[in-house]
């Protein structure tokens, strides 16, 4: 570890972050560096594998591939760090199972031995938000805030697998009404607003989006209606699959439910490290907030310009 860094993590990218929402990757790298946390890559890591689909198809495959991914971080000697609730669910649940079941760990290692790998299990997989809130803490982070919003109403979306199953998560069993993400958001001066069924699922996970897009979009419709009713300026989340569902899914919701929702939704979706980075005074282009308009058919599908206008009005 170089001297100026206080923490070191192995960034487990997963699939949706690097391959569909790379602005999230850019913002995690920028913000962690800014907070004196070193990020190293996990070369050759694969899909976590996704808990709703691949775990649901074949549990042994899910476990062995997850153990392989964790073993890459072990080789380097860093905690795997993920910005995705789905990857977090997989890495953490697999780690938890392997920690508690010796026979299972032995069996998994017999498979890994065939590709010259070994799973030790001594490094806890962490979520980006877990690193921010539990490793660094709000007291540490608040000193980095340079600009505070004077009037920004945020509808926070936690997603499911960051808090549940609660017996395998680090939040002291809290799952009905956690506050850690709201507390981080408040550091930026933004207001985390209450809205109906705040902790409800976005609808994408568990293979639902892949199976029937309309069902996933109906979850999203309900969330968006509740967020809009409460006067949300932006949505802030901490999972790229929720992010995809709230962004691309917002567009799909506008099409599928055009007769029911009235005005089409156009609420910008911002990842937690993008919001933090802005408050730290990091250049928005390093946070993936400036879209290259030469590219078409790529994310974000709902423009973040209304958010950038608020930044201009309130922070500059």
């Amino acid at each position, binding site marked *: 570890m170089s001297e100026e860094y206080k923490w070191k993590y192995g960034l487990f990218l997963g699939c949706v972050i690097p391959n569909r929402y790379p602005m999230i990757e850019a913002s995690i790298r920028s913000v962690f560096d800014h907070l004196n946390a070193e990020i190293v890559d996990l070369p050759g890591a694969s899909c976590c594998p996704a808990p709703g689909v691949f775990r649901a198809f074949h549990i042994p495959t899910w476990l062995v591939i997850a153990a392989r991914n964790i073993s890459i971080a072990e080789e380097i000697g860093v905690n795997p760090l993920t910005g995705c609730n789905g990857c977090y669910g997989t890495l953490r649940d697999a780690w938890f199972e392997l920690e508690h079941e010796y026979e299972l760990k032995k069996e998994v290692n017999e498979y*890994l031995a065939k590709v010259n790998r070994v799973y030790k299990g001594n490094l806890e997989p962490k979520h980006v938000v877990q690193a921010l809130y539990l490793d660094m803490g709000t007291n540490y982070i608040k000193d980095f805030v340079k600009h505070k919003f004077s009037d920004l109403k945020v509808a926070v979306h936690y997603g499911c697998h960051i808090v549940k199953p609660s017996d395998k998560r680090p939040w002291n069993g809290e799952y009905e009404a956690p506050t850690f993400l709201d507390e981080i958001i408040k550091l930026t001066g933004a207001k985390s607003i209450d809205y109906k069924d705040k902790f409800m699922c976005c609808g994408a996970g*568990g293979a639902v989006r892949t199976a029937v897009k309309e069902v996933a979009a109906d979850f999203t419709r309900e969330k968006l209606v509740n967020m809009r009713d409460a006067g949300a300026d932006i949505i802030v989340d901490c999972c790229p699959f929720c992010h995809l569902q709230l962004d691309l899914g917002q567009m799909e919701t506008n099409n599928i439910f055009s007769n029911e929702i009235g005005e089409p939704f156009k609420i910008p979706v911002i990842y937690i490290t993008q919001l933090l980075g802005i408050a730290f005074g990091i250049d928005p282009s390093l946070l993936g907030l400036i879209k290259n308009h030469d590219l078409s058919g790529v994310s974000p599908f709902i423009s973040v310009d209304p958010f950038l206008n608020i930044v201009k009005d309130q922070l500059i």
Partner: protein
Amino acid sequence: MSENVEKYLKKKVYKSTNSKISQKFVDAGLEKLRACINCGTCTGGCPSGRRTAYRTRSAIRKALTGDESVLQDIDIWLCSTCYYCYERCPRNIPVTDMIIKLRNIAVEEGFILDPHFALANDIFYATGHGVPANGENNKKWRDLRESYGLPSLPPTVHSYPGAVKECQELMKEVGFRKLMDNVAKLKEERAKKNRENKEE
């Protein structure tokens, strides 16, 4: 209780908890399902059940009593794995994990939706990613990465062809390849049977 009713209950419930499906739960260490009293707390908190025909209680009940129609039903694929049922179950049954295990059993019997099969067989096995950025069709995503100053492909399996092979090797060893091949066969047989039935 009359003798007949007692006989009926024993037959319907007790005997059938030894069904093929419930045996598989026991084999997987999930015999806790038997503690289910069918109270419906799982269904009450289910965001999917609010908008679809999926009823967690009913799926668990069917699994418990050996009603194998639950495996063919699309319903078990409409659970978004939000884990509210798992958290709130008064009998401490890991309900969501049960649904996931139930899906495993369904897949084993060849009941998997086409988009899920394509995702597992054509994308995950072939690339090591569930959502890849390589290949001709994904150029725009690589361009997007570059527009944020990132390398066009991430330092994942995408940048290490040997790592894809390693994942495939593991998937072969652990039985994923065989499972997918068998699923393809079962799906084909079922499709053929359906065509024949239509012709009749």
